[in-house]
């Protein structure tokens, strides 16, 4: 029978919603147990959140000062040690999970399945390659642990609230390296919804034209309560910071509504939005590739259309 260890992602004392999505994938394996591992310096609030996720059997915590920041070199030996006895180790396929999971796999001497989209059987998974232009079915060896990262856009967050899984502190006898040190995290302060979990996302591209012009995107997003994203072109041009990038090398998202404004729709961008419920494209070029995959398209000047949209909404 399968027993799955899910690595919790958290920041500033809060559990990241990507964790509950990884739990969903774990549930799909139909294991006998799903334990969530929380590594941090102060773990209580995060563990309490994780314990409420439906399907979670136990929450295991390792509270150490060295775990204050998510350094893969520090976390991986602890995860590898804690993984003893588990058939699967899952982490969300976010920059956190992508950083740490392969290090865990290598310590365990096993292959990793990246970006799991679906679970076909306990050791058989589907995952995208070539920027999502092909989907492969892969089988992992069932004789030893499987390490996998979970493509969060493919999985809804497991429900939370009705569960109260027991929380247990783990003591792991692991020597931690000191060769890697955290200096700082520069994050944009925003009161807007989180891009990776928002139900609505408004994204701007090169067509927006400048950092100043991007205000029109922010204003419209605020009007409809949406998170704000951007294409790689807009990030490269310096209109917005890197954490807003949606696409193959940015964030892969699945909002109910995605509005692409002034985005031509390079394949790398489309990779990041394929799982969105409804895609709306607004672009002055009627031939733009974004219209190939948009559910609703509107050809025109965004600087004219957005004010009209706001006016219509009242």
């Amino acid at each position, binding site marked *: 029978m399968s027993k799955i260890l899910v690595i919790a992602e958290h920041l500033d004392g809060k559990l990241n919603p990507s964790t509950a999505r990884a739990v969903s994938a774990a549930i799909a394996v139909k294991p006998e147990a799903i334990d969530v591992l929380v590594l941090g310096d102060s773990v209580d609030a995060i563990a309490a959140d994780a314990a409420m996720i439906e399907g979670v059997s136990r929450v295991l915590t390792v509270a150490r000062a060295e775990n204050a920041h998510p350094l893969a070199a520090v976390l*991986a030996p602890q995860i590898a040690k804690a993984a003893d006895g588990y058939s699967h180790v899952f982490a969300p396929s976010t920059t956190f999970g992508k950083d740490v999971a392969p290090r865990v796999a290598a310590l365990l001497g096993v*292959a*990793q399945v990246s970006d799991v989209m679906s679970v076909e059987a306990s050791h058989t998974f589907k995952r995208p390659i070539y920027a*999502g232009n092909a989907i492969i079915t*892969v*089988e992992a060896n069932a004789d030893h642990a499987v390490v996998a990262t979970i493509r969060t856009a493919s999985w809804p967050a497991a429900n939370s609230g009705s569960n109260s899984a027991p929380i247990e502190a783990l003591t792991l006898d692991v020597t931690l390296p000191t060769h890697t040190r955290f200096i700082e*995290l520069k994050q944009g302060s925003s009161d807007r919804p989180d891009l990776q979990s928002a139900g609505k996302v408004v994204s701007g591209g090169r067509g927006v034209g400048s950092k100043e012009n991007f205000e029109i995107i922010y204003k419209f997003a605020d009007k409809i309560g949406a998170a704000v994203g951007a294409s790689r072109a807009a990030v490269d041009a310096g209109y917005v910071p890197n*954490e807003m990038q949606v696409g193959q*090398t940015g964030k892969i998202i699945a909002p109910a509504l995605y509005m692409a404004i002034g985005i031509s729709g390079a394949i790398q961008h489309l990779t990041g939005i394929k799982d969105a419920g409804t895609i709306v494209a607004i672009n002055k070029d009627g031939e733009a590739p974004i219209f190939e995959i948009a559910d609703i398209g509107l050809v025109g000047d965004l600087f004219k259309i957005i004010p009209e*949209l706001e006016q219509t909404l009242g």
Partner: protein
Amino acid sequence: MKILVGYKRVVDYNVRIQVKSDGSGVVTDGVKLSANPFDDIALEEALRLREKGVAEEVIVVGIGPADLTAHLRNGLAMGANRAIHVVTTDAVQPLTAARVFLKLIEKEQPGLFIVGKQAIDDDANQTGQMLAALWDRPQATFAGKIDVSIESGATGKVTVTREVDAGLEVIEAELPAVITTDLRLNEPRFIKLPDIMKAKSKPIDSIEFASLGVEAHDHLKTTHYAAPAKRSKGVMVKDAAELVAVLKQKGLL
């Protein structure tokens, strides 16, 4: 110090990938092959570090069949001092690649191993991290900015700004270390004709995969390839008012 650069050959990023109708793979016959774009960025960064005087030698390393030498020549033309070609006709998965690179590291003793954060064929995003784990050294993944300060030889530290979901994370790592590169780290230089000529005389050291004593222990078996589900073509609306009406009808606004 020396810098080793992982330099993979992949299907060119402009090629539209076609899945074979029998689900046995993707069409690669006659398809243009190029350097993995992230590895080009890795090589560019290594060359810049050499130009700054941080490194003395840049070595590109590749794993693949006999004709991989043409690809490695491109790396030499871009400016690498020499290349190491680990020869195998088998497809190599990330853990095996990491084990091969570790063998080369043991021989070359570099201060840095720089490689793309992912290859755009398998999109695995694993090799750099796995190598750092096997080497028991720091890893700085998704690098957007790199500053190296050398104390002497290959000792020193590197400060890396990483592009993470929450923003930009800065970490400091002691050398030697593994760095994986993100898109905005730099813009790789173009190869000029005289450089192609010069590259012809640069050395490529060929090593048989079997002679390295690495167990090709790949655990993942790909059983089927499929084209992704297509989104059906949508509708066009004529103006803002109609767009709002459609979205309201769908309960999205």
